[in-house]
């Protein structure tokens, strides 16, 4: 039997260094391919890349914007990772984010009317964001755990419900009477917003994902629940064998997962936007899925990857300031993602083998003599 000249072989094991190397290779390849496209459309790739890197890493303002953009991504992705660890594909981060923002705004409206101090109002908003996001995820989690309903469909569909619900509120009952008819809620008072840090949009909500990641690491390595998460994630059959209650874990993971997305929604309205609107997210919930996946569901890796994505988001805006269409910036994001996910994943699972390997068939004559050897 002929063997082709170039074949892909399954890799069995890969060191951490190799993994990082492959990731870097994929990013470089994506950048090169992106440069080709920019050049083909008649713009200067060097200028474009300078703008992108400058927009995310060039100076305090750029760094601060980059970090601000990574906060919602990291927070949602940490929650998504908890669900993915028990092999529940929660695609509903976007909706849970909006529901968290909605609940926090509800509390803010009540609190602002009652002139609550910030020390009471902010924690109440965080708690309400968590609870609302958790509830929004608990329903599909319950359907999945007890009736086997596909959670990918239910969580995705609930995203639309959540976004439309928020839109209804800001076009209707919660519209700011002094807002010139824009679909925004009234502006949050100082007692309902996170203090700004450094320059630009960076705010105290930065500590939310950092704290969450530390807690996540501790839970994974030091608690019974974390142990169960690891076992279920790596081998559900062994989890069943060990008598781990998988339904309970699905419910718990969905509550935490939705709760984190809800907190992210609260942090975004309270830290950056300061109003509720139908545009508080630029697909953070979906991008967070990729962040969680690229971070291989490890909390610390997720923090790093979310900064990378924060940089990509910012870079997209930055190119438009040097006369290059912003669409090209977003195109670049897509290309880099494609290379990292496609090529990086392929190379970390397969090895490219060039050249022939020994043939499969020995050269014995085709006859089978009946024999009895027992």
């Amino acid at each position, binding site marked *: 039997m002929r063997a082709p000249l170039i074949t892909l072989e399954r890799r069995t094991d890969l060191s951490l260094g190799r993994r990082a190397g492959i990731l870097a290779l994929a990013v470089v390849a994506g950048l090169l391919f992106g440069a080709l496209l920019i050049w083909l459309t008649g713009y200067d790739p060097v200028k474009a890349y300078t703008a992108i890197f400058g927009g995310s890493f060039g100076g305090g303002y750029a760094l601060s914007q980059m970090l601000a953009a990574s906060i919602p991504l990291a927070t949602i992705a940490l929650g998504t990772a908890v669900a993915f660890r028990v092999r529940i594909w929660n695609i509903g981060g976007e909706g849970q984010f909006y529901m968290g923002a909605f609940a926090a705004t509800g509390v803010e409206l009540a609190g602002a009317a009652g002139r609550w101090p910030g020390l009471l109002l902010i924690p109440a908003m965080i708690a309400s964001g968590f609870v609302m996001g958790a509830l929004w995820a608990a329903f599909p989690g319950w359907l999945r755990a007890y009736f086997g309903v596909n959670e990918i469909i239910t969580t995705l569909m609930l995203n639309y419900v959540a976004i439309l619900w928020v839109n209804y509120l800001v076009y209707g009952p919660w519209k700011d009477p002094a807002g010139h008819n824009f679909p925004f809620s009234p502006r949050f008072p100082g007692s309902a917003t996170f203090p700004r840090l450094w320059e630009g949009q960076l705010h105290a909500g930065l500590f939310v994902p950092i704290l969450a990641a530390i807690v996540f690491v501790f839970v994974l390595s030091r608690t*019974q629940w974390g142990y169960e998460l690891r076992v279920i994630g*790596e*081998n559900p059959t062994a989890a069943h*064998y*060990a*008598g781990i209650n998988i339904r309970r874990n699905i419910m718990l993971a969905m509550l935490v997962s939705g709760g984190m997305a809800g907190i992210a929604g609260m942090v975004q309205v309270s830290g950056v936007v300061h109003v509720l609107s139908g545009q508080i997210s630029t697909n953070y919930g979906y991008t967070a899925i990729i962040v969680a996946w690229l971070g291989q569901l490890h909390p610390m890796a997720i923090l790093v990857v979310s900064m990378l994505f924060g940089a990509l988001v910012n870079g997209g805006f930055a190119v438009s300031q040097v006369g290059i269409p912003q669409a090209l910036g977003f195109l670049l994001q897509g290309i880099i993602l494609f290379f990292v996910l496609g090529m990086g994943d392929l190379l970390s699972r397969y090895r490219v083998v060039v050249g022939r390997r020994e043939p499969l068939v020995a050269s014995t004559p085709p006859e089978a*003599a*009946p024999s009895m050897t027992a």
Partner: protein
Amino acid sequence: MDSGDGFPLSVTTDHPAVSMVGIDKHFPEVAANQGVNFSARWGEVHALLGENGAGKSTLMSILAGLYKPDAGQIAIDGQLVELHSPGDAIQHGIGMVYQHYKLVPSQTVAENLLLGLKDSPFRLDKRRVASDIRTLSERYHLRVDPERPIWQLSVGEQQRVEILKALQRGARILILDEPTAVLTPQESDELMSTIRQIASEGRTVIFISHKLEEVRGVADRVTVLRGGKVVGAGLDMAGMSTRDLARLMIGSEVATEVRPSRHSSHDVALRLDGVSAIDDRDLPALRSINLELTAGEILGVAGVAGNGQRELAQVVAGLRRPTAGRLELAGKDVTGAGARHMALAGVAHIPEDRLGEGLVGNLPLQDNALLKSYYKAPIASGPFLRLAAALEFTRGLIQRFGIAGATPRSTTRLLSGGQLQRFVLAREMASNPRAVVAVHPTRGLDVAAAAAVHNWLLSSRDDGCAILLISEDLDEVLQLSDRVAVMYEGQIVAVLKSGEADRERIGLMMVGSSSSKVPSPAAVGEG
């Protein structure tokens, strides 16, 4: 041989229909076929006999183009062929009906058969298919309604559709993988006459089975596989007694002397009272099992794989709920208790698939050590884990069971099969269990590792543990057991004391021969 209605057979020759030489096929950890030679003639029904896991399905999947062999050659009608895909095999007139049918449930019989038409890729010739189905089903008595969707058909009807599909694609060599496993006795009889008729036209039928009696009724010749090797090639069915075949299939090495238990108590540790259960396909797997295990004995379960042993182990380990009956542990009713409950009540479980079920390959040994103890003191402390205690516990397991070269941080899947099995034993033993379910505890192990496992089983028996040993290796069962229970089709057909457990008699019972035709434990004698 042209039958004149659009399903001609190319002229059959004196060449063997199929000739496979020196077939090797390795899967990770298993050599499924080793140097297998197989040959079948035109116009015969050739049975491929062997226990589950003997390599029958693998060999035939190679012939059907599903697997590539690691080595070996295949000739069809004297012509050397290369089968890179099932499509290639169909081109050469090879059709296989798998155990799991490959039909589209939402489509009708006719639509499913359309898939097989290769000469009109863009035109859906429904009329032609309908007439094909009529012709074929009349000729072979394969009654099906072409307009019914597959999901409405019984399993037996679906099987007929699969056979029709193979014939319509021009199969000259038809392979049937355990076709009677899902059929009622009447359906089986009909299938047998269909098979005879297909062969009488000059086609070759290869019939995979582990049931001796049905093979006797239909096959002209038989090839027997054991442990991936041929132990009887192309034997004439007429000249073989059931006894000979059973011996070939199960092996005939002399068992070593049994070492009687040193434990003297006769408290019942585990009792199954009329326990029934269904398997993953919702078919009855256990039928009213009665069994008693006393402390300090090994009860071996002998049987051809697939007769309910797996489900029996799962019921005792709390992984499968019985549908009827009662399960008692040391006098307490534990019917329907889950795996966690059974573990806490003192049942240890050495699972069949150590890396797939008993361990988490990607996690370090320390995490695997905790699988049955992370929720108990001293490892658990409130919701937290005490890592120092976990480390100490893991080190203890590694040391006590002499797992050379392993540390608590070793990645589990990188250990050898023998090391893994020792580790599973060590972990399961750590809780001082009252009863142990051991399923194929030495499968895939080398002699030294197997001996270590045997010694461990014997010494924990002497310490008063009740051990339910399930193994496909009859020698192992005879060598270790104080009593032997024979399982056939989900029932215990006999329980014998080790002294009376004559391997020939057990072998016949295992394949459902004569004495067990009317299963009646009392008649077969309980020693």
